[in-house]
């Protein structure tokens, strides 16, 4: 697959390529010296570009086709993974992956939206857009985790729940609603991480938990900037403005009191180093699960309900 380079990444990539080229002559001490200088410049440039990213640029990073997806995290973070299939009612939805794995020594249930990397795998995973069967599979597995007292980790990365005819016939709304209710009272710890796109109800459908985290370059909102633009501006052209208006980045949601923490990404974004990203996330998850394991189920549920009850802003 062709490498995807976003516009604002270009100056960084150009310098990096130059360094690569110079490395071939690195026996020469002058050049080695020069490489060090340029490396320093790259780091400064990267820092300044990433410090000033617009909200729309974050959306672009969240959608970067080389970003790690759920299965990449599973491969890099856990051992002994066993994937489970199907909702026991209609079929197996491949837009949501679920199974048990070991995070260091303890079992966890991992559930996440799954996108594809090329046309074929995208069709297989329906571009990460679940049907009701996906949400019902997720719930079935969560109940299984509850039965055996295993904590749950969900990874959110979807452009939305699939808006299809059959999805409506089989109750897309009911499936999502049911998950929101049941996840609120699941008697095991749940950690939710937005790893890419958190588009509306399709993301939230596996997004209720005790700790809500977002990776640094992700977005989470009630609607995508494009759809928001088409409805409020009556044109697809205002996506940048819509992204600004929606305040959908990780720092925005932290400010709004929705998420607990922001998980830092490797320099240049998660897509530049899958291994490092997975290592960072794994350490964060281990810490979170260790803390949550100390809380008794009754207390955990009370806190979970109160956490969401506090969200909102009103007068009077």
């Amino acid at each position, binding site marked *: 697959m062709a490498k995807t380079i976003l516009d604002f990444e270009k100056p960084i990539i150009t310098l990096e390529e130059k360094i690569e080229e110079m490395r071939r002559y690195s026996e020469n001490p002058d050049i080695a010296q020069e490489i060090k200088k340029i490396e320093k410049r790259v780091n400064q440039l990267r820092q300044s570009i990433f410090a000033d990213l617009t909200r729309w640029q974050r959306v672009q990073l969240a959608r970067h086709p080389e970003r790690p997806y759920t299965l990449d995290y599973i491969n890099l973070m856990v051992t002994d993974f066993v994937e489970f299939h199907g909702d026991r009612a209609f079929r197996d939805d491949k837009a949501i992956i679920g199974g048990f794995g070991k995070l260091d020594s303890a079992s966890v249930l991992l559930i996440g939206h799954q996108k594809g990397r090329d046309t074929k795998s995208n069709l297989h995973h329906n571009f990460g857009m679940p049907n009701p069967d996906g949400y019902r599979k997720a719930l079935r597995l969560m109940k299984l985790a509850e039965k055996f007292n295993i904590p749950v980790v969900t990874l959110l990365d979807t452009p939305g729940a699939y808006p299809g005819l059959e999805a*409506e016939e089989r109750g897309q*709304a009911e499936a999502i*609603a049911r998950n929101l209710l049941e996840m609120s*009272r699941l008697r095991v710890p749940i950690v939710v991480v937005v790893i890419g796109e958190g588009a509306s*109800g399709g993301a939230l459908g596996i997004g209720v938990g005790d700790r809500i985290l977002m990776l640094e370059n992700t977005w989470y*909102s009630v609607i995508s900037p494009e759809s928001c633009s088409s409805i409020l501006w009556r044109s697809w052209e*205002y996506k940048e403005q819509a992204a600004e*208006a929606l*305040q959908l980045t990780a720092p925005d949601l932290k400010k709004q009191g929705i998420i607990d923490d922001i998980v830092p990404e490797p320099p240049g974004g998660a897509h530049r180093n899958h291994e490092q990203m997975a290592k960072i996330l794994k350490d964060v998850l281990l810490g979170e699960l260790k803390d949550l394991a100390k809380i008794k189920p009754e207390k955990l549920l009370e806190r979970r309900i109160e956490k*969401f009850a506090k969200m909102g802003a009103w007068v009077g």
Partner: protein
Amino acid sequence: MAWFKRSKENIESETQRRELPDGQWRKCDQCGEIIHKTELGQHVYTCPKCGTHFRIGSKEYINCLLDEGSFKEQDSKMRSADPLKFTDTKKYRERIPEAIKKTGLYDALRWGTGKIEKKNVVVAVMDFSFVGGSMGSVVGEKISRAIDRAWKTKSPLIIVSSSGGARMMEGALSLMQMAKTSAKLARLAEARIPYISIMTDPTTGGVTASYAMLGDVNIAEPGALIGFAGPRVIKQTIGKDLPQGFQRAEFLLEHGFLDMVVHRKEMKATVSRILSHLS
């Protein structure tokens, strides 16, 4: 000179033009029947000829559901705080007072306590006329308080929905109202207090995908549009015309997502009968 000359009389329309004086008459959009205001009230805002259910406000709905004079409204002046300072083609800060002025409401939902055939209930009713019945922080908080009240007083909860979905102008906070209301409903369910959800035209998006679909009993009015994605979006996605009656109340009943479709005239008696079993 004309080439052809009409040999017969001019074609005349069968229907006569009827003038509708302001406010006194209403035309049914479905069958064209013209209904006088007093008759409209008697038929609880449905067409006496074809049965079409007209969209009504929370005030009218409360009148047809609760015992006369029993409703006590709560938090009537709660309004949006515009947490994002949201601006599209217009400022949300300006849109809210305009909507308040236009509708006489402060947001898209009214809640309070009342009685149905002498039984104490907590009710929350949405208003589609206020920013498309969209759910933002105020709707979420009011629903949440209604559930808390039902929980504390062990009274059955009834929510009447009509909504275009979550309110864009409050971003992710609107989305979180889905989780907030559903979490509170989980607590209500644990306490074994009945919750009846009534869906009216239209109930779509985030409202359907949270409290509207979570009733112990799900009821809808005839012909109400109920769904997650809007019909236009689905049509765009699949590139085909949608079948007749798709996403209508009867379609949802057929597919197993509603317990019943009930005429507005029968709603109060039906709810009362259900509550006689569940509480």
